[in-house]
């Protein structure tokens, strides 16, 4: 596994821009440029989170769109007041949408082949595609709570403190679950032929 893959550099929670509050204030006051910046910063993270939970690209697109429409409506209605909790709020909206959609459709999440995913293809070597596919299968075997922690951490790129806040659990519990989940995944992958 190459750690020099550029995709990996963006995997951990990205540094929040120092002017995030200013961007949010501008977006709430109708600044189109600020809104575009927010979309660029967060739309792929919301999409990846939805994709990991629902397993279908079209559904993930619908959910992503729905989440940003809700954000836009809240901005426009002046119900949103920036208090430094935008990411936690955004992904709580996403989690609620995903839960509602899952209940409505009663769908079972199905693994998505990364080679068949729409949009920009990631330049991933064949060996890594296999590893990614195996990882997706292994994740499906984890308990729901552990899947959620990993998806919020890696797909949504949330900090552990934000994950704890979103799931209403102590940070220590989230860290322990994260560690335990990685251990389970390692064992599952080692058994993969």
């Amino acid at each position, binding site marked *: *596994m190459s*750690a020099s*893959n550029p*995709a*990996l550099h*963006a*995997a*951990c*929670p990205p540094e929040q821009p120092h002017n995030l509050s200013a961007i949010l204030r501008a*977006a*709430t006051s*109708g*600044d*189109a440029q600020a*809104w*575009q910046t927010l*979309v*660029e910063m967060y*739309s*792929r*993270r919301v*999409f*990846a989170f939805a*994709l*990991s939970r629902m397993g279908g*690209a079209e559904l*993930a*697109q619908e959910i*992503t*769109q729905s989440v*940003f*429409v809700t954000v*836009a*409506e809240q*901005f*426009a209605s002046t119900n949103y007041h920036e208090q430094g909790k935008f990411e936690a709020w955004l992904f709580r909206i996403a989690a609620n949408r995903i839960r509602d959609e899952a209940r409505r459709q009663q769908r079972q999440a199905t693994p998505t082949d*990364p080679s068949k995913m*729409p*949009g*920009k*293809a*990631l330049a991933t070597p064949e060996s*890594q595609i296999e*590893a*990614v596919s195996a*990882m*997706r299968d292994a*994740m499906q075997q984890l308990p729901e709570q552990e899947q959620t922690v990993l998806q919020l951490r*890696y*797909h949504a790129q949330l900090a*552990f*403190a934000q994950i704890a806040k979103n799931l209403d659990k102590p940070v220590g519990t989230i*860290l322990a679950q*994260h*560690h335990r989940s*990685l*251990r389970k*995944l*390692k064992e599952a*992958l080692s058994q993969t032929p």
Partner: protein
Amino acid sequence: MNDKHTAQSELPDDLHETQHTLELLAATARASMPQALAEHLAASPPDAHRASRVVLGRITPMLAIAALIAVLATSIVFWQPSAPINTNAQDALLAVMQEDDLFVDIFDDAFDSFYTELVATEQLFASWDATALWDDSSSLWQEVVQ
């Protein structure tokens, strides 16, 4: 709390490769979002929603007023009273007088009939000798006494 540092420092070395694979899976998912969706989302700033609400907020009262005027105009044009209404005091007085004339005619007829009967009765009594009824010798009295 340095989130990244905490996570890395608590992870044993043997889990780093698993973590990297997981990160690659997530990065693949993020990269798979269609660019068209990003462009669509970016082209729908919150101001558009606000603008539509402002426009609606301005149009709605105007539409309500226009609808009210239309309803009133329609009512005026198509309104036909079901019964004549006395629009002035003269008409009202005339109606009462007409009704009074009718009442007087009816009363006059009735009074004439009553008066005629009264006169006839008086004439009858005047011509009747009541003492004859109670004469001791009358057969009727005799019957009562007995």
